[in-house]
């Protein structure tokens, strides 16, 4: 069975799955879709109270959580929509122009 990790943009047609079927879940994790971003959220850890409001609002699950604390953004998947900045009650997230965090 052909796995998603074994397929890339250099794979010949003979080695792709029929009709593009995908035989496993969660393959979006492996693909860098963060490069679509034109604005970038910046996380200010010192101002964060870990209220966790930004997490469910993120449309791309791009805010990782570990041991009850949010970590810095997953820039491989963040599209820079700015919803997190909008819902954050504290000055813990600011948006900067451009696709790269300063």
């Amino acid at each position, binding site marked *: 069975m052909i796995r998603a990790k074994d397929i890339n943009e250099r794979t010949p*047609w003979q080695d792709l799955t029929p*009709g593009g079927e*995908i035989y*496993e879940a969660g393959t979006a994790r492996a693909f860098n879709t963060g490069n679509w971003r034109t604005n970038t959220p910046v996380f200010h850890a010192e101002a964060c109270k870990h209220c966790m409001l930004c997490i469910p609002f993120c449309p791309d699950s791009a805010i990782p959580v570990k041991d009850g604390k949010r970590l810095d953004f997953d820039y491989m998947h963040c599209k820079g929509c700015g919803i997190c900045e909008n819902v954050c009650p504290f000055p813990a997230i600011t948006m900067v122009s451009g696709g790269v965090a300063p």
Partner: protein
Amino acid sequence: MSSRLSGNEAVAYALKQINPDVMGAFPITPSTEIPEYFANYVANGEVNTEYVTVESEHSSMSVCIAAQAAGARSVSATSSCGLALMYELLYVAASCRLPITLACVNRALTGPININHDYSDSMGARDSGWIQLYAENNQEAYDNLLMAMPIGETPEVRLPVMSCMDGFITSHAVENMELLDTDIVRRFIGEYKPENYLLKRENPLAVGPYDISAYYMEHKVQEAEAMKAAKARILEVAAEFEKISGRRYGLLEEYRMEDAHLALVLIGSSAGTAKAVVDQLRENGVKAGLVKIRVFRPFPGEELARALAGTRAAAVMDKSEGFSANGGPLFAETRSALYDLKDRPYLINIVYGLGGRDVKTEDFVKVFGRLADIAATGDIGPVYTHMGQRSKEEIA
């Protein structure tokens, strides 16, 4: 077992013998009787098919796609505008490589609105990636439907199959025919065993994901290769079918073509009328012959070129208008197929029988007369004409 059935009855009976897992059912003339007869089988407990009544053909094909992806053998039946409403889904079924079986009872596409026979519906879907089989009569409609699944479900093919018959002429006329025993049919069809399917517990599966430019072309090449592979599989299945039925099928049927100088190329029930004319002309010493196309997708180009190689003049009879201003779809395929021949016959295209316009033996006698003139004089005249319409001019 001998029986007397209409084409629709024969197809419904074939479906009963197959006992598919799911039917997406929606009525449209002239295919309505197929889901109607099948509903009786369901109600009587003669099949255990999940019979899904839907609100449109777009939905009936969607039901088939979802069910087939889930691992269920799925069937539907439609005609004309019903097929047109499925159009988007026909491509989805083929590109997801889901071997659905569709009984297509050919009827003219609106407009003007018309319920009678021509091939404008399925010819419009000829580039959708479906295998297309065409029947001359009720027996062939039954036989082709039984062969659809063994063709489409083969791993190297994995394409949906459209089994077509002529609306009313075949679908509603009752003919004597031979039916196979149900246990023989079931052994012939076998179990549907896809390698991967949505309900397979061992691994999750995503079907029909978004295909970016970096992958789309590769998947289209896969489909094109599958269609090429289908040619050999269709012949294999025909050989297996001959063992259980005694009836022989190819990609096309050559009728008295061995030494033919003049030939017709056509599809479907008109072949019966044309064969009678070929016999009549042969009695008068005219070397007439007929090629009936049974499989339009994949198109048997090499086989057709071989069949016509020895002829001097041939007429391609199109029962649908392509509005290319350059001839109908069967003509386009035939002329292309002949290009590689060193010595090609003169070739004309006649569009006929649109919207149920009758075609009679005397019509084909006239066509053969025109071919005889072309063969004798080398003067081909107008290449693309229509036959059977009222006109102030007289052509064929």
